[in-house]
């Protein structure tokens, strides 16, 4: 076999492996239940909107009453949200949850590299946390001819 062709096949195989790995990770993410047994934390529902120069993240935190019970942190390229429920939550009647008592929410999200962490803002109303993360965007004016 020609050397260039062998290298080509090898690159092709690696690319296929990479795609399968991405799909596998996505499947794990989708099928992941919204609770963490070991940490006894709930994973909140969230929605992320990407505007041109800002990320807006809405996190549903039912059972959290006060903003002092919420901790929002940016660590490297991770956004970590932790919040304390006003009372422990359990569902003893549902088989998978039997015996589990949840006291906190925890959500970890990956962020792009160009965030402006010093200008981040967060608001909390009616059990929904809204986080605004500005993005550093280099703007270049293009002349219209």
């Amino acid at each position: 076999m020609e050397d260039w062709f062998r290298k080509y096949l090898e690159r092709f195989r690696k690319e296929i492996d990479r795609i399968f790995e991405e799909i596998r990770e996505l499947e794990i993410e989708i099928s992941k239940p919204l609770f963490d047994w070991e940490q006894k934390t709930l994973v909140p529902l969230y929605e992320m909107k990407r505007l041109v120069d800002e990320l807006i993240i809405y996190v549903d935190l039912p059972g959290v009453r006060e903003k002092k019970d919420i901790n929002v942190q940016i660590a490297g390229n991770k956004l970590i949200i932790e919040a304390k429920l006003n009372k422990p939550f359990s569902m003893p009647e549902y088989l998978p949850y039997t015996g589990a008592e949840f006291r906190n929410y925890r959500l970890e999200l990956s962020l792009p590299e160009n965030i402006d962490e010093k200008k981040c803002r967060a608001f909390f109303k009616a059990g929904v946390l809204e986080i605004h993360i500005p993005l550093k965007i280099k703007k270049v004016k293009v002349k219209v001819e």
Partner: protein
Amino acid sequence: MVEENIWELYLREKPAEKSYLLIGIPDVGLVGPISTSHMIRIFKMKELGYIDSTFLPPIILFHENKPLMPVRLYSTNIDGRNIIVLHSDAAIPPPGLPSIAKFIVDLASNLKTKMIILLGGIAVPNRIKIEKPKTYVVSIEEKLREEAEKSGFEILREGFIGGAYALILKESFKRRFPAIGLFTECFATYPDPGAAASLLSTLAKYIGISVDVKSLLEQEEEIRIKLRELMKRTVESMQKTGKEYEFTIPAMYA
């Protein structure tokens, strides 16, 4: 092509004729199933039977030791009004939507119901700022629309409706079967018991019954936590079902 007879009805007994058929299928904010579930609970409605299909996920529920199918029918008489409720605990996968829409209109017609009332939400981006969400009436019949307007209900005048309820409205329109939708402003991707409470108050006024929503509002936080998984699955199912059209301005109004 839509296959026929892929939804099957299992009825233990026939409900009274001229009933209102209320539909609660998972959709934005889970407003429909939260509303129907509350009605089933507070009126202690009798389980009439269920519908089944290979389109549904392979699941069966257990409640107080008893098996429950994911899509069930209930009935009762409230303040002299005969009511049938179709409640779904499972998100209907998109390939099953056209056939379930036809099936529901067939069912409404075969059971000689008075009309179909769809209970659902209409996602609004500023829901967090809305204290008391508005409920809009959507009707395929001019007469029903006029009556609703005269009685002071807010009519949805322009805009797209997408998803399962759009298909049921289209099917009712084609067959001239009376149907209305009650759609309340809600969160798109979070369970919204507050919207369900507003919707039930409008429904009560519309059909002339009394529905107590106090316990629904008291359990709001608990419901929001418990229904996160169903909401997540519903959001996955809602992709490519026409829901994305609800924020679109139709070309004829541009």
